[in-house]
């Protein structure tokens, strides 16, 4: 299917929201396609949670428009609320209730019939791997388990869109991986996911498209490749030779026909790593250059973010 024919699930246009003198969200626009995992990446205070609150209808924008599956959230907030599930940043559960009682409560708010709700709870608990602990009180759960129930509580009304606001904050790597698996399964089932985080590796793993946010603005958006182009961050290979003379270096430069930065026995070659690396190694071997070490410098999101905003993501 042509990408232009894919249905837009979320369309945000010229959205702004201020709190007193702080512009939390400043004239931003983006759209998200059905079945997409869209990442909102930015440091704390960038405006990610405000966007989630605006899209989930609990905050009113000062300016701009949000369409959820073509429904204006200002006019059809009840319809929109049925379409979306929200996984809040805080673990918003009742500690004194069991997992199943929490899920029954949260599911009942969406008027899911009791029989269907019971079956859904069973399926979701199995999906998140906590069916065996369903009757335990939430206060006896580990942080990672609570996070999984926090996700489950947003799925009980079968939402088409899932907003996940930093769903892995404070969890161990094992639980984080489990959460990633859950998200991937949900996405395979066709749920559109908006994922906010300040962890680049999460976005890199999960999101097809990314919006990079800073100080209430979207500084760039697109796939990782598109972001790389926008930021002018190049991939590079750093090769350290055991010994290389100036003559050999000139020969290598003419053979590769690319710019080489040299420092002592090291050279840094800006290139498309996936496409050019094998050719570079082959030429080095033919020139009898003995390679001591090869390092790949990928154009990752950290470098892209630094290039676009001039600051580290965790600032």
């Amino acid at each position, binding site marked *: 299917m042509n990408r232009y024919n894919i249905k837009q699930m979320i369309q945000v246009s010229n959205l702004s929201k201020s709190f007193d003198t702080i512009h939390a969200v400043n004239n931003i626009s983006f759209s998200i396609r059905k079945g997409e995992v869209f990442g909102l990446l930015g440091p704390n205070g960038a405006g990610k949670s405000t966007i989630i609150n605006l899209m989930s209808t*609990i*905050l009113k924008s000062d300016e701009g428009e949000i369409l959820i599956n073509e429904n204006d959230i200002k006019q059809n907030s009840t319809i929109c*609320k049925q379409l979306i599930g*929200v996984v809040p940043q805080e*673990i*918003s*559960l009742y500690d004194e209730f069991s997992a199943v009682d929490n899920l029954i409560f*949260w599911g009942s*708010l969406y008027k899911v019939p009791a029989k269907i709700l019971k079956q859904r709870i069973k399926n979701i608990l199995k999906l998140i791997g906590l069916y065996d602990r369903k009757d335990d009180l939430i206060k006896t759960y580990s942080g990672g388990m609570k996070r999984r129930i926090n996700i489950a*509580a947003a799925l009980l009304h079968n939402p088409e869109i899932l907003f996940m606001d930093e769903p892995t904050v404070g969890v161990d790597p094992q639980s984080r991986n489990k959460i990633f698996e859950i998200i991937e399964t949900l996405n395979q089932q066709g749920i559109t996911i908006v994922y906010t985080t300040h962890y680049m590796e999460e976005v890199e793993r999960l999101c097809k498209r990314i919006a990079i946010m800073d100080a209430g603005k979207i500084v760039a958006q697109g796939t990782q490749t598109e972001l790389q182009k926008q930021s002018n961050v190049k991939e590079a290979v750093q090769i350290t030779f055991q010994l290389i003379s100036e003559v050999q270096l000139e020969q290598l430069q003419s053979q590769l026909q690319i710019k080489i930065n040299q420092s002592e026995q090291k050279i840094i070659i800006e290139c498309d790593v996936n496409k050019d690396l094998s050719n570079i190694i082959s030429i080095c071997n033919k020139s009898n250059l003995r390679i001591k070490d090869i390092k790949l410098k990928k154009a990752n999101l950290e470098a892209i973010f630094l290039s676009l905003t001039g600051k580290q993501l965790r600032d």
Partner: protein
Amino acid sequence: MILTIFKKDLKLFFADRKGVLLTFLMPILLITLFAFAFGGIGGGSSKAEPIKLLVSDLDNSSDSKSVIASLQALRELTLIPKEVIEATNLVHKGKNVGVLILKKGFQDSISAGNNLPMELKYDAAREIEMGMLQSVLMQSLMSTVGQKSIKAKMNTYFDTNFSGMPQEMKEKIFNNMDAIKGGMNTSAENNMGLKMTSIVKESTKIGNLGLIQAVAGTAIMMLLFSIAAIGGGLLDEKESGTLKRLFYSPLKPTDILFGKMGAALVLAILQLVVMFVFSWLVFGLPIFKDFTSLVLMILATAFAVSSFGIFLVAIAKTRQQLQGLSTIVILTMSAIGGSMIPLFVMPAIMQKIAVVSVNYWGIQGFYDIFWRSLPLIEILPKMGILVAIGLVMTLISVLLFKRNVLKLMHN
């Protein structure tokens, strides 16, 4: 380390200005309130409001009018002339402390030196006011009709036992007795013949006054505290994030507030029921004597109190604020409304202020059921006021909830 923690906690405390204000304002207000309640304002020179005494003059003679005039001149009393039946009803309903009835033959009895045909019908629920009233009445009656009555009595005695005693000698004896005033006063008081009748007859009052005061007063005050605590759960939800999650769902803000109010109302009803059942089992409070009125009164009180509790929660923005606010407001309402100190002990000005309190209407309603044995129709206005208080508090809570809780949640 300790100093760092100390500084941090003080900084946090003083950052919540409303909380700080309440923390310091509360004891000041309570001290002022109790000083008023116990009459300690103004260096002990504060004057009590005059007691409103109903009076029915059935004799309509010069002597009865003279007695009424002398009573009217007293600053401790305000006399209100009324027909006997109407006056008795007013006292029965607790509107006035008592009615003084000067019966037919009052003047003749004075002239004949007989016991005076007069009666004071009073509300036993206002025991302390009654004590003051009785003392004022005796002094006044004695000075106006007491001596005249005794002289008449002695005259009759002399005429019967010492016929032919010259008038000059009689006068001499009377003058000598005047000189020994104390003895004459005692004699006069013993002969006044003022009949004292409690308007709530033993057969109709269905509870012990002290017990009713203790049960109704304490129940309403404790209910206010527990409802404020239940409502405080809303602030806990805000802090834990579950409130925000509730707003993500299709619920309306008022659904959440009314849900909380419903829970608070049910718990309030349960708490009152438990308290009254306990009082029945342990103290023998006859709760089944007028069961319908009791049930309706419990419902009205629970509604007013639960709405008031939610109102407190709607104003407060933090747990600290709620704690300070609920303590100050509940203790104030309980003090002026008669939960802590029976109303009749308080100065008249405090009794007037009491009507602004939920406690007052609740306690008076339970008095009407257990002490005054009023029919339901007569208690309905008090229930109506409680329901009206509940409705007003609910309305204000809805407005404040939308403004405060939602705004805070978004920030």
